[in-house]
């Protein structure tokens, strides 16, 4: 599974006008971001006319349908898809990977590209990465909640194929680095939470508890009311970026997608699907070049990281290499949402008393929550990390 939204021109460049044939749910024409406390919310929303025009900026997608279409495109291009086989182990020719073992059979290959996700067994077996740390991983849990199309469109103020991607941070994660999301599909919502795996264990809380916290928030509950849960899923996301990228290639072997930890997590964005598609394309290009040279050695395949450096994949991960450390700051998930909501409350509440200047209200809201020096320190961190 995945969260359910992907962005950018990646797929458009491979398949022009793909949205006309691919089973996408909606195009994302609005982005919304909300800070939640126990009983309040403060939101910002962005939309622009261009987001509603082809080639669109993003889409909501359910993978069960989408993957089938995507696989059919690969088959049309000559690939053989064998989902009934599991790549259990690697075949070796001395120190070079020479294929895979699957279902008791040996399938020899000039190159194996490991795209087997965050729990990449093949990358481990190739000896290219060590044990993953729960600090570098976020757990995502998601519910797909069916809501009649008309009601969904009324509730989220959508028309036609318009959709919204709505992200949340705040008290529902109880200080654990992470957040929640709601993406609108045609006749359902993808509602989920991501939370740092190590923090869940340290605080002895399950991600499902946080998801229930989130769903019961008064501003969220009204959005989900009357919905019908049809699926509950979970997935891990490697979110420490550049710091956790494994060795990307060896003799006869390449690593792409989540297996290579190609995920961009900046707090405002969490993207992996487009990184998976572009890294998969770069891996294919590296193999084509190697085949032309009839040399599948490590040296020959070393063009793979070079191709990734030319694309946004390694550039973005380098640009935001300090983001994951910054995003461990618990003030982002507790004190700042509380501060913002408390200030908004003071500004908008009319209690019949003489008003105070907003600056004074801010100072009052900051009291016992966060010091000026901490805000200054965090601003410097934002400048460095984001």
């Amino acid at each position, binding site marked *: 599974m995945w969260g359910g939204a992907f962005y950018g021109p990646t797929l458009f460049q491979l398949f022009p006008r793909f949205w006309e044939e691919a089973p996408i749910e909606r195009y994302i024409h609005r982005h919304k971001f909300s800070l939640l406390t126990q009983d309040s919310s403060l939101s910002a929303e962005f939309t622009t006319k261009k987001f509603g025009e082809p080639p669109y900026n993003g889409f909501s997608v359910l993978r069960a349908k989408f993957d089938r279409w995507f696989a059919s495109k690969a088959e049309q291009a000559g690939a053989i898809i064998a989902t009934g086989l599991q790549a259990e182990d690697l075949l070796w020719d001395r120190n070079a990977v020479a294929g895979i073992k699957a279902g008791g059979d040996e399938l020899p290959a000039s190159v194996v590209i490991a795209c087997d996700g965050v729990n990449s067994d093949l990358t481990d077996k190739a000896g290219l990465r060590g044990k993953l740390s729960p600090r570098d991983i976020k757990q995502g849990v998601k519910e797909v909640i069916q809501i009649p199309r008309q009601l969904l469109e009324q509730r989220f103020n959508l028309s036609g194929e318009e959709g919204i991607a709505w992200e949340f941070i705040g008290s529902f994660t109880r200080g654990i680095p992470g957040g929640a999301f709601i993406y609108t599909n045609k006749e*359902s919502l993808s509602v989920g939470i991501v939370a740092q795996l190590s923090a*869940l*264990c340290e605080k002895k809380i399950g991600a499902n508890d946080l998801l229930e916290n989130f769903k019961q928030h008064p501003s969220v509950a009204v959005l989900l009311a009357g919905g019908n849960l*049809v699926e509950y899923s*979970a997935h*891990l996301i490697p979110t420490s970026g550049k710091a956790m990228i494994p060795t990307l290639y060896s003799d006869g072997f390449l690593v792409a997608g989540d297996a290579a930890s190609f995920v961009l997590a900046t707090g405002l964005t969490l993207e992996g699907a487009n990184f998976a598609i572009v890294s998969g394309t770069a891996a294919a290009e590296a193999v084509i070049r190697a085949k032309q040279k009839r040399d599948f050695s490590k040296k020959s395949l070393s063009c793979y990281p070079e191709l990734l450096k030319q694309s946004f994949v390694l550039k973005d991960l380098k640009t935001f290499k300090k983001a994951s450390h910054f995003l461990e700051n618990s003030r982002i998930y507790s004190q700042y949402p509380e501060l913002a909501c408390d200030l908004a409350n003071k500004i908008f509440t009319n209690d019949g008393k003489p008003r105070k200047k907003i600056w004074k209200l801010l100072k009052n809201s900051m009291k016992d929550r966060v010091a000026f020096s901490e805000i200054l320190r965090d601003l410097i961190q934002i400048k460095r990390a984001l």
Partner: protein
Amino acid sequence: MSSASIEVKLANNKYDIDKEVHVSIREDICKKCDEHYCLFACPADCFKLTEDHITFSYEGCLECGSCKIVCDKDAIDWTLPRAGFGICYQYG
């Protein structure tokens, strides 16, 4: 939320449960463990603490791999179910 709520949620999922167990725990190691991170890491509540020992049932597993990553005692043998078995996401 109680584990009952997770059970209700899992009842909506489609599984093709394999007869072969794909995740197993080493009870001798689990007995000596105080942290029991697996209890909080598993989103499907597959791990239960009964009196002083951990039990594990693989049937509701969502195949996320969290248990393997959080167990610092290497007490969990984790693989995916055989091809064609396990969780079959209808939406994803």
